[in-house]
């Protein structure tokens, strides 16, 4: 008798496990509103720029009675997550995404009413438009730019420009940086972000057009000035002007600059909040990007899209429209530290650090002055996506690493980059 009972002893274990699993599952039916949705979700991915959205979400709920759930997603895996959510029919209502995806592009709503509203003055060259439909409006701009260790410059008594209208050239800057390095016994003149977007800035500054899409929709062979610029860039990686390790073995330029051992750092506006908090050992400053050609790499911080989830579709559009209304967008840009996509806003950023405030001022001026080519990188990406193509893997970084390491010459490098880009476009 006891053995027959004991035989069933395992049953409770299985039952408990099954109940536990059942309890974990289920319970995902909260949209019961038939007419106007009461709640929408808004996804974004950011390390710090979220406060502006949560503030506006409160205002929006007070005004429209629709709750916006702001969800911060990790950047690593965000695109995968959106793709899988599309397959599960559970996309968010509104999202700020790093780039559009052919998998869900047909589920987007038309945002032209918001984008074409003259009161907002949204920069038309930055919205993603297809067949008269506006699919995405950028939440903010980002621009590449140069930072210097101001303390080292002061110590060495070397002057630097502060007005983007009267900028220096790369040669002048490097001469100044070398002077500072030798006078202050710093380690390097410069660290430069290891990124395909950031190297574009250097190419444009030196008169090159970089890697551009041709009329046939393929990437073209770059011009001679681009080749000269890349050759110059390689020569700078001599472990004196620049440490080789950043472009060849993944050393962190941000950390190197923060150590106070490097005279200057070429990165972008997104570093400003980080530096405002994270640099206490010396004074830093944003300085005009060196020329001769006044250009930078202008990119979009995030693209705001509204998905068509039937019941919540109109509420989603309302939220997007609310975000970009002039007064609301001003608040958003200020508290998140955004470079504005709307012209003519008087922004007062809430930073305490004077260096950070000056930096934002400088970036806003630089964007006005920048050569139109500065935004061509992101424009090409958008164009490809609208054609249903995308470059998933930019070969620039690995090919440049081989070039800098002396494994291949400049011609082979640009050929490999162009071929690598084009092979992903078929």
């Amino acid at each position, binding site marked *: 008798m006891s053995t027959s009972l004991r035989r069933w002893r395992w049953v409770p274990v299985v039952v408990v496990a099954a109940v536990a699993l059942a309890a974990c599952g289920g319970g995902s039916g909260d949209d019961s509103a038939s007419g106007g949705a009461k709640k929408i979700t808004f996804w974004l991915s950011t*390390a710090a720029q979220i406060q502006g959205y949560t503030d506006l979400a409160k205002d929006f709920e007070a005004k429209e009675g629709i709750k916006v759930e702001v969800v911060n997603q*990790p*950047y690593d*895996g965000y695109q995968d997550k959106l793709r899988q959510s599309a397959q*599960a029919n559970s996309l968010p209502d509104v999202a700020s995404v790093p780039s559009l995806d052919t998998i869900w592009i047909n589920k987007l709503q038309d945002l032209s009413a918001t984008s074409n509203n003259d009161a907002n003055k949204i920069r038309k060259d930055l919205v993603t438009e297809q067949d008269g439909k506006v699919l995405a409006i950028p939440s903010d701009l980002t621009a590449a730019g140069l930072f210097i260790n101001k303390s080292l410059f002061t110590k060495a008594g070397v002057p630097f420009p502060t007005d983007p209208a009267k900028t220096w050239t790369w040669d002048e800057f490097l001469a100044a940086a070398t002077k500072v390095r030798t006078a202050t016994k710093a380690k390097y003149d410069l660290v430069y972000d290891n990124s395909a977007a950031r190297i574009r800035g250097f190419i444009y500054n030196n008169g090159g057009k970089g890697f551009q899409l041709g009329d046939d929709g393929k990437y073209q062979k770059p011009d001679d000035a681009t080749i000269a610029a890349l050759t110059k860039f390689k020569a700078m990686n001599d472990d004196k002007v620049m440490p080789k390790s950043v472009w060849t073995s993944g050393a962190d330029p941000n950390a190197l600059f923060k150590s106070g051992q490097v005279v200057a750092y070429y990165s972008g506006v997104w*570093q400003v909040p980080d530096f405002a908090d*994270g640099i206490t*050992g010396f004074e830093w400053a944003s300085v005009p990007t060196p020329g001769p050609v006044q250009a930078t790499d202008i990119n979009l911080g995030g693209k705001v899209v509204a998905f068509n989830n039937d019941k919540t579709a109109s509420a989603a559009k309302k939220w997007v429209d609310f975000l970009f209304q002039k007064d609301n967008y001003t608040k958003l840009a200020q508290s998140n530290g955004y470079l504005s996509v709307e012209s003519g806003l008087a922004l007062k950023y809430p930073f305490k650090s004077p260096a950070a405030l000056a930096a934002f001022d400088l970036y806003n001026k630089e964007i006005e002055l920048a050569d139109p080519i500065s935004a061509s990188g992101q424009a090409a990406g958008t164009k490809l996506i609208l054609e249903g193509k995308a470059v998933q893997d930019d070969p620039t970084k690995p090919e440049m690493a081989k070039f800098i390491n002396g494994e291949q010459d400049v011609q082979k490098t640009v050929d490999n980059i162009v071929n690598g880009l084009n092979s992903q476009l078929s």
Partner: protein
Amino acid sequence: MAATTAPSAVRRTTKQGMTGDLTKKFWATTIMWLMVAVYGLPVLWFLLSSFKPAGELFSYPLTFFPKHPTIKGYTQAWTSFDVAKYFVNTLIVAVSATVLTIVASAACGYALAKYNNWWVKLFALCILATTMLPGEVILAPLFLVVRDLHLYNSLSAVVVPAVITATGTFMFRQFFLTVPNDLLEAARIDGSGELSTLLRIMLPLSRPIMLTLAIFSFQWRWNDYIWPLVVLNDPGKYTLQIGVATIVGAENVNWSVLLGASVLSMIPLVALYLVFQKYVMNADINAGLKD
């Protein structure tokens, strides 16, 4: 002559033996401490760095101890996402996945070790095959299966695909192979059914394996990242690793907050290890029979 030399020879060898033992001990201990330093110092540095303010993390020259210790990294990490809720979610996932993994692996490993059928062997091959594809490759098909089972956006979606692991199954299989068949036969002669043999004889014997697998499984689920991120949609169901990852931005990383969050997410694993360490360290796997 032989009688006179023998004692001194004995003495000499014992003396040599003792000093030999001592030097052996000395070297062994030195190497142990060296290992402790090699493994321990980075962890210690990591812990100490989590108390440094952001401005001090990259300052030159590097310092081991924080000059101005602060817990700002921790407080910011605690407020940047719902740590307590994510913690509970992760705990539910890790505990239920671990329990189910052990049950499945023990039963499966027992069958693979002690039954001799062609389809059992085929099944073993199938389980082995699951280790041959990296997780990224099966991510999309696995997602479709989970979605069609209506598990999407529930914690069970994280648990269920993780239950069958080749590692666990083969750990148990290898162990049960070492258990003599005599023991099984003795049990059968005494009238024990197959299930009760497994539950009452085999499982108690395999306790060290169970606990080792428990620690591994718990750690795997605790550190799981991309799968929970993809399969959970409601932020109220997120796990701790997803929360920690939100601190890492596209262009820059808030290191001081990330350090704080990482330390917080490590604490439960360390606690678990401290509780179970005597079982993990106890490699004395004894089948209980003299053979």
